């Protein structure tokens, strides 16, 4: 029973990270109807930036904020420079661009920072709390994920800019008519997603250690979480992310062993999708004939 509780809690903790990345995926999907395959690699790059800042002596939270701001900038620049010209090109061509970005970011982080696994500091210390079931870092990371979710929700719900972004994604033509700069809304969406990805990267790096391929598997889980929750729903993405984390940990511990746990998680998710293709909270889009 103890072990089960432990698996459950650490599932929730890693689920929190998947939730954050899933949230970033959903943000970009909402704004552009693209799935950014390079999201994970962008987050890895951001995490390395944070590590460098910390190594040159910046306090953790200063490095954290600077990294989030820098990542936001990188996201905006990528949208403006690389994706703007692809507007109107076939979707598969944009997928080609994303795969290209993924390769570039992966190779760059490897070339700049090397392929050795590195430790990344946690801001939450390593004291034993709650009888050792959860590490303070897992707790802190989960809390930060929830705070980010709340902020994102509040941003979209209560600010004028958030409303404009939702409008631009929902109906670009009408939004343009009422004076919203749709192009910039897309760029902002990319920036936000990159910033959220950076936070996720910094939260998971202390757990899995930092190397250029750190986010490979995580992105897949996050993608699964996003689809499980329904890719049209940010809240669904977060719930989906947590569920994937729990399924992964419990399944890995009790059913198939760690080697096949990725496979198992994906099989379960596919099964759920076959039963409910729009995801848990996603809207089924009815197309007019």
């Amino acid at each position, binding site marked *: 029973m103890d072990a089960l509780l432990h698996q459950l809690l650490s599932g929730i903790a890693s689920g929190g990270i998947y939730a954050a990345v899933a949230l970033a995926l959903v943000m970009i999907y909402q704004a552009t*109807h693209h*799935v950014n395959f390079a999201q994970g690699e962008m987050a890895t790059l951001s995490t390395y930036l944070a590590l460098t800042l910390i190594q040159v002596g910046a306090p953790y939270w200063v490095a954290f904020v600077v990294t989030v701001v820098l990542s936001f900038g990188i996201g905006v620049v990528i949208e403006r420079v*690389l994706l703007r*010209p*692809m507007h109107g*090109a*076939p*979707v*598969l*061509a*944009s*997928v*080609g*661009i994303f*795969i*290209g*970005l*993924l*390769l*570039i970011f*992966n*190779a*760059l982080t*490897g*070339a700049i920072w090397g392929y050795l696994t590195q430790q990344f500091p946690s801001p939450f210390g390593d004291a034993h709390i709650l009888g050792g079931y959860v590490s303070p870092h897992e707790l802190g990371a989960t809390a930060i994920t929830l705070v980010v979710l709340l902020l994102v929700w509040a941003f979209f719900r209560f600010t004028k800019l958030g409303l404009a972004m939702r409008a631009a994604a929902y109906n670009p033509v009408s939004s343009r008519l009422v004076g919203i700069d749709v192009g910039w809304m897309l760029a902002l969406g990319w920036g936000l997603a990159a910033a959220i990805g950076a936070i996720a990267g910094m939260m998971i790096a202390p757990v899995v250690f930092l190397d250029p391929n750190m986010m490979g598997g995580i992105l*897949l889980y996050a*993608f*699964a979480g996003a*689809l499980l929750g329904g*890719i*049209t729903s940010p809240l669904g993405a977060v719930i989906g992310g947590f569920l994937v984390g729990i399924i992964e940990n419990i399944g890995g511990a009790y059913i198939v062993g760690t*080697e*096949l746990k*990725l*496979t198992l998680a*994906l*099989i379960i*998710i*596919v099964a759920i*999708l*076959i039963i409910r*293709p*729009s*995801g848990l909270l*996603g809207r*089924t*889009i*009815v*197309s007019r*004939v």
Partner: protein
Amino acid sequence: MGQATLPAVAAPRAAARGFALLPALVILVAAAALTFVCSNYWLFQLTLVVAFAIAVLGLNIVTGYSGQISLGHGAFYAIGAYVTAILMSNPLTLPWLDPIEVPYWATLPVSAVVCGCLGFLLGFPALRLGGLYLALTTFALAVATPQLLKSDLLGDWTGGVQGLTILKPDPPGGLPLSADQWLYLFTLAVAAVLFVAARNLLRGRIGRALVAVRDHPLAAEAMGVDIALMKTGAFAVSAIYTGVAGSLGAIAIQFVAPDSFPVLLSIELFVGLVVGGVATVEGAIFGGVFVVLIPQIAEKISKAAPGAIYGGILIAVMYLMPFGIAGALRRLRRRA
């Protein structure tokens, strides 16, 4: 989320038209002539190019023509490769016969049948999952492939993590060719047959039906096209092509192991599809060349970060030719 989420391609007008046979024959003869020009190393690379071209063509049938995005075709490639390797390294024993060594060419039809059946079966869940969800499902397949190949369940056949080694076939009866030359010609011949078959399949009634299902399923159904049959059939044919490509690749490399078929393989096939030209038969050739040769060029340019160069080239190609190399060529021809 319906099919409409990810319109796979902005339909090129010439989608259902095939390549012209005469230029194709010229290219084939030129490619065959390379046998006597290139070193064995380059013949090996060219053999891989041809195998990848077949695999990309297979992916194109399901993703380009029928609009079902697959990020998991590496799995079929792996299955094809393993079928060949298993058959070649285990003599066939039937109770009433002496054990027979299975010749390399005889493994191709077997892997076609195995992959075709599996592709057909995968086509059924694919019917229910549109767009992104299908992309994820197939991607999951690609991720699961190396893990499943490593698992102990199949260990007796697959050789587990160590994989299987096979011998390079000798040229038949006294032909004055080296093994590499013969294998290249053999692969080229198989490719020629498969490409012509795909062209004839896709430019006729079935090709038009596939494109109709992709672009407007409702209208297609109203015209009497059996959507489910078309989509699962496309998956099956596509799996056959990719599986045979895997077999040829395995014979060329003489070795299969779980880690020869990482997720990256599926992504490479996808890159080949997009770069070559979605929904074109001839684009698969450019795709094969790109996927096999560009990483090597990138390696020559920068030892430190070849991935960055490769990614950069990929992005540049997508900028300049959003409809792929074949799409760009078709445009040029139309303008001329």
